[in-house]
Structure formats: C-alpha cells, structure tokens
C-alpha cells in the first residue's frame, strides 16, 4: 500500500489553518463593516432606499417602475404594481400589497433598510449552516440505520460538523428574538386585531400555529432534540473507541433510528417555520422536503470537501479513490434529487397557476434582480454538478470534487438566499459586501468549531465493526 493507514491518528488543528481561518474571519468582518457603512450611507444598493422611506407607498411606487416583462397570471393592481398574495382568497377587505415592507411601514417600521438586510443575511446563514450541521448528523445516523460499511473510515467528519448545532441554536434564537419583526411579517400584532386597518384574516387564521410562544417552543424543542441526539451518538462513538466490541454499534443503530424518526418530523416543521413562514400567505406541501434536500446536498458537499482537504493535508489515508468515487456519486445523485424536488414544486405551481401559490415564483421571476439568480441557482446546483461529475474520473479525482463541492455549497447558500431575500427585502434585495462578509464570518466560525471538535476525537473510529469493510472498499 502506498500510504500506511494510521488507525490511531488524531487531527492536529495546525496554526497554519487557524491563521487562514482567522484571516478569513478578519476579511469577513472588514467586508461586513464596509457593507454596513455603505448601507447606512445608502450607497451601492441597487434601489435607492433613501427615497421617502417613511411613506408606506414608497416601495409600491418603486415596484411599479419595475418593468414587468412577463405578464403574470396574478392580478396586479395598476396603481400599486405589487402582486397581491391574497388575490385568490376572494377577500376585498385589504387591497394593499401584503408584503412585509408595506405592512412594516404601516406598523411603525420603515421599509427594508440596511438593518433589515443585515438581519436577513444572518437568517440565511443561520439556515444554511444549521443545515450543514444537522444534515451532518443525519449522515451519521443514516449510515448506522442503513448498515453502511464503506463510509466507516471518515464518519468522524460529519459527526464533527454536527458540533456546530449548539452554536447554531444560540445564533438562531438570538437572531429571531432581535429581528423577528423585520424578518417575519406574521409577528406583527396588528394583523390579528380585527379592529386594526392592518387586520389580515388569512394570517389571523394561522394564529394557532404562527404565534410567538408556540414558534419559539418549537425552535427550542427541535434544537434540543437534535443536540441531545448529537451528544448521545458522539458519546457512544467515543466509548466504542475506548472499549471496542460490537455492542456500541447496535446501540448507535438504535439511537440513529430514533433520531431519524424525530428528524423526519422536525426537519419539515423547521422548514415551514424558519423559511416558509417568511412568506406568511404562501404555502407548499413539498417545501419541507425541498429544504431538507438542499441541506442534505450541502452537507454531502461539505463532508466531501473536508475529507478531500484532510487527505491532502496528510490525514485520512484510509480514504482511497473508491471512497471519493462514492462521495462523488452521492453528490451527483442528490443534486439530481434536489432538482427533482425543485422541478416538482415549480412545475405543479406553474401548471395549475393558482394565484396564491404562483405568487412565490412571480416575485422571483418578474424581478429584474431575482430572475437571473433564479436561473443561476439551477445552473450551480443542477447543471454544473450534473455535467462535471458525469464521468467516473471526475468523481475519483480531488480537484474536480473540490471545485464541484465549493460551487454546490455556494449554490445552496444562494438557494436559501432566494428563499429568504425576496420575502424579507421585497424588491430591495442586494448582493454585496455585507453578504460576502457575513458568509466569510460564518464559514470561518463553522470551520473553527468543526476543526476543534475533530481534534477532540480519534479521526478514525478504530473499533467500528465495519472498519475493515471500509478499508478494503473497492468498486
């Protein structure tokens, strides 16, 4: 064998890597600061938000100036140009556009400002990096439940990714507590008050589910479940390293099965809560699975990327070209799976053309700013991995995997950007220093947490009963 496998190897978080992550962090902070300063001064945004922000109609006016190239099926009131979410609900009581911005304006907030944009960026990164962490744990669990042997050698990478979960929980909760009124239109009390001019019967009808207490309770419970199972799975894994034997494997399989059941329910509900309710009138039954697919592909890309980089740094010699090939297949196949769900949701809404559903795509397709991103999303997450990873060789060579994983990771970040930004920022979304800066900050923090977690465990689960299968993995 070319490289000897060190079964007892431990990862050493080198000062070189720490320095790199530190520099990324600093660049991120600088860019973010630049973005904020520009935001405060009103520079570099693709719409002039400074125009009469106090006037509730300012964004409606703005929107009416946007040329609609496609005549959507949804009613557009000529005086506002804003598509109404509730067009098909047959309710004439509230003819105003029910976007966050308009309602925010009506309920004491100004329209989307740089601060809203900052919050929305925090939210996007919270969603994306929480996804990486929880889908990492999902990876581990599915390996045990499916009795997969080939992946035993690098199982510690996805496990380490899940150590971001506690951080993610705090970030998510804090962001929500600070920014809920800016991010979530449904959090405004006036919408539920029948005497208020802002009363919204549709949102009021959802009060049983969309209310602060129940929402926060769900958030806390979901994170609690995920973190508990992360600790349980890690604890048994660590014990297995010390004591050996097959009994831990059976315990882990049991925990994994229970986690998977809880995850099946919690991941869908989390997607409704954290993403779908940003557009509080809109609904799609597939949405939970769509978000899951996005998380899952991102996690596969992150695992592959970390494995490849560790291997290049001289670790994980247990991983050979066959493992990379299989990881590449996973990335390839689940990119197609994500596309399948994307297409199913899009086609059915497009085809049936029911206004309260199609509004979601109309907002994203008729905007000059979002529609290119809409297609870039498809290119990065479907065409690119599909074409590049088509051949056997591409899946077996680190360079292709590194490129595709990076592209796919950014692609899925962009997917979340496209889910969140039009809902929060309406037509005022942008991509600039603030976005790049915050991505770098989160990525660097995620890197620190995951890599430090890796130093605290054996890199190879040396007593895993399927380790021999993994070592001799050959396809």
């Amino acid at each position, binding site marked *: 064998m070319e490289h000897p496998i060190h079964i007892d190897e431990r990862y050493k978080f080198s000062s070189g890597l720490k320095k790199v992550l530190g520099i990324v962090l600093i660049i991120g902070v600088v860019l973010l600061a630049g973005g904020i300063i520009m935001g405060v001064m009103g520079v570099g945004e693709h719409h002039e938000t400074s125009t009469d922000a106090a006037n509730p109609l300012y964004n409606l006016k703005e929107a009416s100036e946007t040329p609609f190239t496609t005549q959507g099926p949804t009613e557009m009131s000529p005086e506002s140009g804003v598509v109404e979410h509730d067009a098909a609900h047959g309710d004439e009581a509230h003819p105003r556009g029910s976007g966050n911005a308009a309602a925010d304006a009506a309920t004491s907030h100004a329209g989307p400002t740089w601060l809203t944009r900052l919050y929305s960026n925090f939210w996007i990164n919270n969603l994306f990096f929480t996804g990486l962490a929880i889908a990492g744990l999902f990876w581990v669990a599915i390996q045990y439940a499916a009795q997969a042997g080939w992946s035993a050698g690098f199982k510690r990478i996805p496990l380490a990714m899940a150590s971001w979960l506690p951080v993610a929980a705090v970030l998510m909760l804090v962001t929500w507590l600070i920014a809920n009124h800016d991010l979530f239109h449904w959090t405004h009390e006036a919408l539920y008050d029948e005497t208020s001019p802002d009363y919204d019967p549709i949102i009021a009808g959802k009060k049983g589910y969309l209310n602060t207490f129940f929402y926060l309770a769900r958030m806390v419970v979901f994170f609690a479940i995920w973190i508990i199972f992360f600790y349980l799975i890690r604890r048994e894994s660590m014990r297995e390293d010390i004591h050996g034997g097959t009994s831990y494997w059976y315990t882990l399989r049991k925990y994994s099965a229970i986690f998977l059941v809880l995850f099946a329910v919690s991941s869908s509900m989390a997607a409704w809560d954290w993403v779908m309710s940003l557009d509080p009138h809109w609904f799609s*039954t597939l949405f939970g699975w769509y978000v899951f697919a996005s998380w899952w592909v991102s996690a596969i890309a992150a695992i592959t990327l970390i494995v490849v980089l560790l291997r290049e740094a001289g670790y994980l010699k247990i991983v050979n070209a066959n493992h990379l090939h299989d990881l590449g297949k996973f990335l390839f196949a689940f990119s197609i799976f994500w596309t399948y769900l994307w297409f199913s949701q899009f086609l059915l809404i497009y085809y049936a053309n029911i206004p309260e559903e199609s509004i979601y795509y109309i907002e994203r397709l008729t905007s000059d700013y979002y529609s290119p991103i809409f297609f870039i999303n498809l290119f990065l997450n479907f065409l690119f991995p599909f074409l590049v990873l088509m051949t056997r060789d591409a899946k077996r060579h680190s360079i292709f995997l590194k490129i595709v994983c990076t592209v796919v990771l950014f692609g899925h970040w962009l997917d979340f950007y496209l889910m969140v930004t039009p809902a929060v920022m309406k037509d005022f979304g942008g991509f600039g220093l603030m976005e790049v800066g915050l991505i770098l900050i989160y990525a660097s923090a995620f890197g620190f947490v995951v890599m430090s977690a890796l130093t605290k465990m054996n890199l190879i689960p040396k007593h895993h009963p399927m380790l021999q299968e993994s070592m001799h993995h050959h396809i």
Partner: protein
Amino acid sequence: MQISAPVREPLVTGGKTIKDVTYDISRHVEAPPTNPRWLLAMAVSLTLLAIGTYAVFRTVWDGIGMWGNNKTIGWAWDITNFVWWVGIGHAGTLISAVLLLFRQKWRTSINRAAEAMTIFAVICALQFPILHTGRPWLSIYWVFPLPNTWGSLWVNFNSPLLWDVFAISTYFTVSLVFWYIGLIPDFATIRDRAKGPIARAIYGALSFGWTGGAKTWQRYESVSLILAGLATPLVLSVHTIVSFDFATSVIPGWHTTIFPPYFVAGAIFSGFAMVLTLMLITRKVYKLEDYITMSHIELMNIIIIITGSIVGVAYITELFVAWYSGVEYEQYAFLNRATGPYAWAYWTMMTCNVISPQLFWFRKIRTSIVATFILSIIVNIGMWFERFVIIVTSLHRDYLPSSWAMFSPTIYDVGVYVFTFGLFFTLFFLFAKFFPVINMAEVKSVLKSSSSTEQINR
C-alpha cells in the same frame, strides 16, 4: 477483496455450496408441472381470469356506462386500480436498480421475482386506461402522436396523461430488458442441465447462446449497471408523472406539491408489501428458506416502515397545510375526507398505511412470518384505499355543491379488477413454474462472502 463485518447477518444460510444453489432453484423448473398445489393455484387464477374476462367483455361491448362512474366522478375504480398496479410494480425496480446502485447484496435473492412482479403489474395497470378509452382497438391511435391522416387527433403534449404513455412505456421496456438480461445466465444453466431435447431447445433459445466466458460476464455486469442507472430515474419519473395526472389540476385534494415524491414513496411501500406477499408463499412452497432468510424479510419490513412513515408524514403535511393555507376549498376537501361520507375509506387508509406498518418497530412482529404476511396484505389494502380516497373523495365534492355526487361501483367495476388479479396471478404462477425464481448467478456471487452454515429461524 470482499470483507463482511461481523455485525452483518448472513445472506445465505444452511452452508449452501454453489452446486446446492443450482440444484435448489433449478429443480422447480425441471420438475413436471403436475404439482397439485401449483395446479390448484393455476386453476384459481384462471377462474378469476375467466370471470374477469366476462366483465371486460361486457365493458367493451356495452360501453363504459357499465361502470359506476358518473358525470361528477369521471375517474374512480379504473384509475384507482391503474395507480395501484403501477405502484406495486415499483418495488421490483427499486430492488433491482436502486439497491444495485447502493450495493445492497441482499437484493440478489429477491430481485428476480420482484422484477417479474413489476412487469406483470404494469401489464395489469395498462388494462385500465386502455379499457377506459372505450374502444381499446383504437386506443393505439389516440395515445401516440400519429398524424391526423391515421384517423386520430393530434395528442395534447400539455397533458400529463400523454406523459404517462411515454413514461410507462419506457419504464416497461427497460424493466423487461433488465429482467430478461438477468435471466439469460440462469436460462443457460437450465439449458445445460436439461435432459429432454425440447427443454434444451427452448431454454437454449431463451439463453441467447450464453457461454459464460469471462468477457460475457464482464459485459453482463456493465449492462446491468447501465440499466440500473437508467431504471433509477425511471422509477422516480413514472410515479411522479402518475402523480401529475392529479396534481397539475386545480382540484382541492389533487393539487398539492408534495404529490410527486410522496407517490413514489407510496408506490415503493405498496410494492414491497406485494413482494412480501408473493415471496412468503414462494419461499414456503419451494422451500427457499435458506435463500430468502429471515433477515431478508426483516430488511423488507424495515423498508415498509420507512416508506410507510414517509407516506404518513406526507398525509400529515397535506392535512396541516390544507388548514395552514387558509384556502376554504382546501380545508373543506380534507375535512370532507376525514369526516364526510367517505370517512370510512379515509380511516381505513390511515389505519392500514400509517398505523399498521409501525407495528414493524417490534422485532417480534417483523420477524414473524405470519404477522408479516398479514401486514403485507393490510398495506396493499391501505394503498388501494389511498388512491380511492384521493381520487373519489376529491371529485365527489368540489367547487359546485349542485354537482356533488356519490360513487358506487357496479359489479363490472369489481369484475375488471378481478380480471387483472386473474391475469397477474396466472402470469406469476407461470413464471414461478417455468423460470428460475431466484437469480442463481447473483446468489452464487455473494455466497463466498455472505454465507453461513447455520440454519437460522426457519
């Protein structure tokens, strides 16, 4: 180098040698077709087929009016049965293609029969849309994009029903080729063992002159992998497009975005149940307990838990989002399902599909042959009701209360369904008698790494 971890269950028990594999499976093909149990099974199937043929005859002769469909409920048992049969077929493709891609060695003992089931189930499914055209002999002109000079109208490419034609015909072709290619080496084995000249000639022709050379095996494996790669998107596409038949409409209860993946999961769910029903009988009658072991049954039961739970999550999602949407019609569609005149069908569906498979969480139940057999049938009943609930309860009360109606099947609805059962079991029993029910060649390939001398829980 093939290594099996100590925690893996053996795939073949009883210390079988390669010779034993050939003998245990070929002997059923070689025995004369005079086994009384087989003759009885064929007689029952042919009787069902004969009764059903009468119903088909009356339907074609007198018209679709023989069915219970009415102007409100234009689709009922016909499409229910169509979707049910197509769904059953999915397990075969999942076992042969998806499990091959995931290198699940346990598929080798069950893939042959499951693929056969796929093909027969698709044939049964096709009877319904063809009969529903009213003039089956003309349907060929209507479903394909043929020029108007052939006496037909140009097809509507916007219609998911046309996509069905393409999806299912492709799926059927690929499944058939996949199944047949897998059969070739086994036919050659039977040809080589054949004593009579007729058997030798027939199995010789069927085996396409298979030599068993190294190069031939290499090509066999490449072709299998390519076909598996083709069949995997197909298995998703077929039920996805079947779900589009409903979901592209604007009927509450039909139009919902979760349909495509949820239909696929449901199809695999019902398909595995049918594989279990058939395999438990075959295993017992042919004494194949060392090949289709308890761990095979357990793994199939676990797939039933998973897919059943996915379907359960989808039901609850639909129900929740109907409420959450705030759309009155959506809300009513689901309220009507759960509490309206067809509530009995809805709760049958819920019990059979969501609650009953959860029993498999108990190891005792999922390793019990009797319990597995009963539950596999319950799941199939549940999945039939799922399609009935989706189709009939959504149609019978839609936007216009003045058009609300009820559906009751006629004896001919039942008869045509019986016809497909007769057809399915006739084909399956013919297969089980004259074709090797287990893929001998592939079982031999896992024998070395995954065999045990123990005879575990017969």
